[in-house]
């Protein structure tokens, strides 16, 4: 069994020129956690995750104070928004390098990669490098567990 058996074939992707503001709207509309960024040939050149956008809103102290249990009210930062200047920047400035798997990648290999690289979703590419699907940890995990039920 390989990753194509469990991946979603309908992938929502964006181009590097998309603004952060537009990307946020796509996350909301599609209710997803990761957007592959592709070039004009539909080849993945990066990814942007929901957490990358949320990081823009997270207060600075979260990076310095390990244990925030004692802070019962985040006060002023609770209702701040990233400035318009940031939201109008393009995704290119924020996107991270993409880690993909080939269409013939085995399920266990895909799962191990996601575990080690701390990925929740992994884009799948064809032999010529084009984006053909995306698989989540749940997609891959369920596919692996289903083989137990079949007694394979």
């Amino acid at each position, binding site marked *: 069994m390989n990753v194509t058996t469990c991946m979603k074939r309908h992938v929502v992707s964006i181009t590097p020129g998309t603004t952060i503001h537009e990307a946020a709207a796509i996350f909301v509309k599609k209710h997803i956690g990761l957007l592959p960024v592709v070039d004009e040939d539909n080849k993945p050149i990066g990814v942007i995750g929901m957490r990358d956008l949320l990081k823009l809103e997270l207060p600075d102290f979260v990076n310095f104070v390990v244990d*925030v249990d004692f802070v019962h009210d985040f*006060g*002023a930062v609770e209702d701040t928004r990233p400035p318009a200047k940031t939201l109008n920047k393009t995704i290119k400035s924020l996107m991270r390098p993409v880690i993909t798997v080939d269409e013939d990648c085995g399920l266990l290999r895909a799962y191990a990669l996601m575990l080690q690289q701390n990925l929740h979703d992994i884009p799948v590419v064809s032999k010529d490098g084009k984006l053909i699907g995306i698989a989540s940890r749940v997609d891959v995990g369920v596919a692996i567990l289903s083989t137990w039920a079949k007694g394979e």
Partner: protein
Amino acid sequence: MPILAIIISSVIFFGSLILIFSEKINRSIVAIAGSVLMIGVGKIMGFYSEEAAIEAIDFNTLGLLMGMMILVAMLEPTGFFEYLAVLAARASQGKPIRLFLLLGGITTVLSMFLDNVTTIVLIAPVTILISEIIGVSALPYLVAEALLSNTGGVATLVGDPPNVLIASAAGLSFNDFLVYSMPIVLVALAGATFLLQALFKKELSKRPRRSKAVMKLNPAETLNHPENARRVLIVLGGATLFFFVHHFLHIEPSFVALSAASVALIWVQPDIHEILKKVEWSILLFFGSLFVMVGGLEHSGVLEIVVTLFQNADGMSPVLFGILMIWIVAALSAVVDNVPITIALIPVIKGLGETGMDISPLWWALAFGAGFGGSGTIIGSSANIIVATLSEKTRTPITSALWLKRGLPVMLVTCAIASILYALVYRWL
């Protein structure tokens, strides 16, 4: 032959200093290599030896620093520093001026008894937290904390490494610092606080959006190990009592610090590997290596020449000489680390003493210059570097230009205050 020894030992020392200040290679690595080279060359040329190098190391300084580092390493994970900052935040009720004075005050007092670096490393993150939740910029608070810890550290024997070095070399006691240094430092602190409040007037008069958020900070929850905090604080308190009487008992401050460290270790029984990891061995090695290098300068005759040069300033009044020393040392400390400067100047002052000059006021001039000078630039002291590096990871980084507008005036004012009081105290000389 002595001329050659003088030239080569100077080249090794000043070459190492330049490498250290260029920050191209880690300073401890440079210092170790330089000290090994100094011994090697000294042995070949016959002016230095392993025995002489070991003798040149001031183990008093190293012991005192190590003892205090162990104590602080044990206090750090208890959450005590966060606890103090949260108490300050609540007491301020989120009002900027009050918060500014309270956080500044806590940092000042802590920096008098503990290492400035540790104080700042632990207070600065909570400062960023407090300012973010009330909705104001953390800049004034962070800059003030670094500057006040530079200033406050000069007050006590244990407050700052240059003081430890000076006390050990000059045989000054903990109480000598309380009598001769602290009063002047308190005036300098008042001046610095007043000045900072004026310089940051605009930021501090802005109304915070959510000042009430600080009231929901729970101090009790910041203490991870209340029992350990209590124990280490009791030991630190006991150590301070012994510091007050150490010279009556004829014990060195380093013995007090190391005894306190061992009592705390026995009482708390922490994971010793974790504690030792927090001890800054690179700093201890750096100090040790500098001692060895300066020992080489002493043995080759370089320091003698420097002493003779200073002696030519014989006609100058001693008070003026002291004030000049404050400003020259301060100017050097603003751009380079004050520890090598202090270690290099100590034998020079001692040499001047051997020529019959009354050097007791000069030790204080050296302490004020080395301590207050660090405020001048963003790289002037470790505390400055730490708040600057931390702020680089926030949305409002501290720039070196900002530091020149806020820190340099503080350096000038504290040095001026020290000079005036110094002149008043020592005018009869």
